[in-house]
């Protein structure tokens, strides 16, 4: 299976703290993407990191990728209540397919 797995499944933090989510996958990839899903809504693309990149930043988001360990992490700094959502990693082999992980449910307490 090419499905990724996120860890932890659920995370609860205080506003202002940092949140770190991890993703592990099984096969070689072209790129790895992170998506956010607010309750009852569709997924929103956050950031993409290519297989030849090790770290990428976008605003308060920092993504790392370790292809030797087949793992990625998403760090959200200075979290806000509005960051409360489920976060999914998705891997791509470069074809028109994405394989999603199981998601991390993040709750940011005001």
């Amino acid at each position, binding site marked *: 299976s090419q499905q990724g797995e996120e860890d932890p499944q659920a995370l609860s933090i205080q506003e202002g703290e940092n949140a770190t989510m991890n993703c592990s996958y099984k096969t070689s990839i072209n*790129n790895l993407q992170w*998506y956010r899903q607010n309750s009852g809504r569709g*997924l929103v693309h956050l950031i*993409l990191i290519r297989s030849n990149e090790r770290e990428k930043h976008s605003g308060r988001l920092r993504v790392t990728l370790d292809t030797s360990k087949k793992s990625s992490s998403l760090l959200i700094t200075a979290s806000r209540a509005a960051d409360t959502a*489920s976060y999914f990693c998705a891997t791509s082999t*470069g074809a*028109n*397919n994405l394989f999603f992980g*199981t*998601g991390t449910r993040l709750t940011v307490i005001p």
Partner: protein
Amino acid sequence: DTAVSQTPKYLVTQMGNDKSIKCEQNLGHDTMYWYKQDSKKFLKIMFSYNNKELIINETVPNRFSPKSPDKAHLNLHINSLELGDSAVYFCASSQGVGEVKIYEQYFGPGTRLTVT
């Protein structure tokens, strides 16, 4: 303007019925997808169409039939609905071919299907 739209947002129907979900994207993308998200939030690809041609067909019962009248639309028709079909179905699009390939996918708001 909504980039990827789906109708209906909610669909409640009885076992054995046939139903359709419609999807439209106004992003000019050439590739569209259907995903199924189960009650545990696991999201799995069902179909992918590129320029109206089927390119991905995961292990999905043949009761599910996608139809793409043009590259901006991808509809999903489901025959003989079963209880296990209850889920949220998401449509998505991306730019799959060409010199500038955009791997990011843009998702619709989802259609919550409940089969009773």
